[in-house]
């Protein structure tokens, strides 16, 4: 019991704990800790779907929404998934306003030729990810960020089976492309 308490005392609070505390007290220092633990993840996720300037704008607005709507956060929830979803919705709203990419992102991807493998020789991993269809890329990034299939399905508002399929395609393409690069 004492060991657990000491461990808890000295351990770094999780993002969920930080958000629960911020939702309750609204202390800026708590938000700063939360931001430092998740900001890069959120930004990278959005930057993988759009250009860097738009990603910066979307990520900022997502965090401002976290500040404004902190009391809506459910304490038992996964704060990272919550913020990712906020950011994703903001990005999709922008896409809809600009009538851009949204169809590709929210609908089933068309199965394209193995585009990634064709580019493998000259492209880096980042470029290979960019070459993936947006929905596959998104599913892959969310998985790499530690989300479960169910959480990815919730964030992307797609059935779990669809997510499984997207992940399978994404991984296979990337693996193949990388193996070709290293050969």
């Amino acid at each position, binding site marked *: 019991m004492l060991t657990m308490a000491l461990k808890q005392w000295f351990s770094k609070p999780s993002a969920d704990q930080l958000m629960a505390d911020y939702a309750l007290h*609204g*202390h*800026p220092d708590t*938000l*700063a800790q939360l*931001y*430092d633990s998740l*900001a*890069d993840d*959120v*930004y*990278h996720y959005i*930057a*993988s779907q759009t250009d*860097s300037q738009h990603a*910066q704008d979307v*990520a*900022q607005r997502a*965090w*401002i929404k976290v*500040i*404004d709507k902190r009391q809506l956060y459910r304490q038992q929830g996964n704060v990272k998934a919550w913020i990712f979803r906020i950011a994703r919705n903001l990005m999709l709203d922008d896409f809809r306003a600009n009538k851009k990419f949204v169809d590709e992102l929210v609908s089933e991807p068309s199965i394209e030729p193995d585009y990634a493998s064709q580019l493998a020789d000259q492209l*880096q*991993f*980042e470029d290979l*990810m960019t070459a993936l269809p947006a929905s596959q890329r998104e599913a*892959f*990034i969310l998985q*790499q960020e530690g989300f479960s299939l169910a959480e990815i399905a919730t964030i992307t508002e797609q059935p779990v089976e669809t997510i499984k399929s997207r992940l399978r395609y994404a*991984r296979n393409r*990337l*693996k193949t492309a*990388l*193996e070709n690069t290293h050969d």
Partner: protein
Amino acid sequence: MTEDQLQQAYQRAKQQHKAPAASRRLVLAKAQRHAGQKGHKVNPWNWTMGSIAASALLAMYVLLNFPLPLHQPSADNLMTTLVEVHHLNNEPIPDSVSQSIARQASITRQYDNLTREFANAQQTIAAHHMRRATLISDNHEWRLMTCDQHLIILTPALVARLTTDQGVALKPGSKVQLSFDKDGHIVAISSAHHHACQAS
């Protein structure tokens, strides 16, 4: 290629895309402002009700303690077209009245209200005409502003006589009815219960 290698490759690529420092500053500044607003947040309803209650209390205090001076114009800023000074026969005009007179635009008449004649007049002479006025000051003398913006100054001795003889006790702001004889001398003063400038 293993899943671990894939993950490592992903993490390496991710390092190239860190959230801009400017975003951190902007977001944390927003959080600070938000915290400040929350700290000073007041319930608008309570604030409104509090303001109304405070205003009501202030109004009641003023009405109870200073019922009339609120409606009293500044003596030095009076817009008058005529100043009349009324005093008893042979009564010297006090300095304060003289100074007041000097400040006014013009003085057209000074009325000597003869003591004896005045006393008799009250009993025997019917008022020739009446005018309504508002008492605006009693610092050194009575100043009465009529409805037609004439300022009537009564000397202290005349005031004493009028109040003693007729038992009127007036305060600044009081509406009064002045009775004049045919020569323009004040023969009586009484409280007016209606608005000073309504027709009698």
